[in-house]
């Protein structure tokens, strides 16, 4: 399980780590408003010491997208 990633998601979106799946997004997570979605990216940037481009930020529609962009930045999210 991508522990660090899920911890940040859990903290920002106030959901239990155990329910997190790649498909979850604004429709399925109550606290995933457009602003809070951006808060999540911001806190991931701080947590993983990366920067999302504006294109990546606009592209994120669910947890799977976040994983993809992190992996593209060379982050081993499962490690």
């Amino acid at each position: 399980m991508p522990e660090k990633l899920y911890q940040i998601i859990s903290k920002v979106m106030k959901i239990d780590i155990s329910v997190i799946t790649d498909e979850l997004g604004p429709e399925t997570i109550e606290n995933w408003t457009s602003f809070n979605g951006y808060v999540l990216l911001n806190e991931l940037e701080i947590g993983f010491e990366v920067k999302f481009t504006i294109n990546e930020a606009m592209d994120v529609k669910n947890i799977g997208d976040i994983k993809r962009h992190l992996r593209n930045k060379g982050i081993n999210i499962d490690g």
Partner: protein
Amino acid sequence: MPEENSLSHYINKSKEITKKFDKKIRIGLLSSYTINGLKEILQVKSADRNISCMIYEAPYNQYSQEILNQDSELYKFSPELTFLIIDTRNIFGDIFRFPYSVSSSDRKKIVEKTNREIKNLVDKFVEKTNSKLVITKLNIPSFSPNGIIESKTEYGFHEMIKDFNNLLMKNYINSENVFVYDFQSFVSKNGEDNIFNYGQFFFGDIKISMEYLPVFGQDLMKYVIGYLGTTKKCIVLDLDNTLWGGIVGEDGFNGIKLGPEPPGNAFMEFQRVLLSLHQRGIILAINSKNNYEDAIKVIKEHPYMILKEEHFAAMRINWKDKVTNMKELVQEINIGSDSIVFIDDDPVNREFVKSIFPEILVVDISNDPSSYVSIIENIIDFSVLKITEEDKNRGKMYFKQKIINELEESTPDLQTFLSQLDLKITIKEVDKFSLPRVSQLILKTNQFNLTTKRYQELDIEKMIHDPNFIVGCVQVEDKFGDNGITGVFIIKKENDEEWIIDTFLMSCRIMGRGIEQGIMTYIKNKAKNDKIKKIKADFFQTQKNKPIENFLPNCEFKEEGETWTYSIKSEIEFPDYLTLKVE
């Protein structure tokens, strides 16, 4: 990264606030850009200080409509404190990017126009509500299209914004309701590149980055504290490793670290910042485990002590525990323990005090003295919306009272007590410089006033120029400083043999120190030198002038019918506890 919690921490924690506190505030938030999260930050930070915070957040960039529309949600909410958060891009529009597309005179006109618009809005708001308003100054971006010759540009882009900010400040410098927040200080403290992040700006018109929004919120809390008056008023300080480096009991007077060399300079600077707070009304006190003699010798004699004995309203230097001492200090200073800040380098002492007095702000200073100054500078709890003259003199008054109490307790008789005050009186004829103060005393003094005759400035001026009158004033100094002009007398030269005391008064501030005896002796001696035989005086009793009722008999005046008379003697002794200077 700032030393702050993340934005999500505040957003989530705000949902968990259930407790209702006695202290409450209603805040309105108006802004020209996205400030999502600020509401939650203020709510959490308020709850941390036992304040319930209700917030109305106006829709994005609707501040004008909210202020202009009489029936707006803002007015329905009726805030007590409103923040109007505006920014340079929003105020200047296209000119923000293209300042040099217009002439310098047009730039000036734009600044005047935009400033007028904001002023109209603010005036409208002030007219419609009782809320205090805090409006932010505009940020001055470091970039200018003119680059390094920006400073050679007449009324350039940067100067425009500075000018706008200055106008804004001047508009409200004397206002009781409108406060101007120095956004530029916030940016220069934290850094433009940290505060403003183009990614966040393009994504959601965010102009204060998510990382630094909590820092901004912390700054705004100063107004909440100032508004509610939950301000800290007193700093209680440890000595060893707090005001100086080392332990005086072990390292000795010469061994402690205090002086121009590091690390002594850090302690000196720490003392300077404490002194600057003292000068604006914060009370200082000492709570230290030490041999009294060792510690007081440093305070009194160390050449690099910035804080002197006179800056401390109370001291507990002994081997009792810090809590016992704190209880005594609270009583002696007569202050609520919730208005105290405690600074001690020892974490055990800090925990102990915190456990007994949770309401005291116990500052966690590290073991690095170079960080002390910034820790003090970052305390927001000294914020006030107003500083009065009384505030500025508070520290002095406390010390004065402390010494006078100690003297009175320890002195066997009044004469000895008075002689220890180093009283010095200066008597001079009233001139145009002292006239306003003299007139104020004549119009206001009730208690120590022989005749309570009220004269306007013009009346007094006539008497000054009339050779048949002596209009004198008295300045009083003691070992604690100058009390200023605090006494007035007017003598009418009735004829070659007789003077009449028309007016004799003293401010209640200097009553009870035998000053009046000194003034009267001066008058008697002056009369004697002028070959006068008799001085006459009236005493008109009022409801308030009881303190002066025995003054004339005490000065050897004899009652003769309705008036009192003193016959000049050959020997007139001046009180020995007073020094007299005649100008």
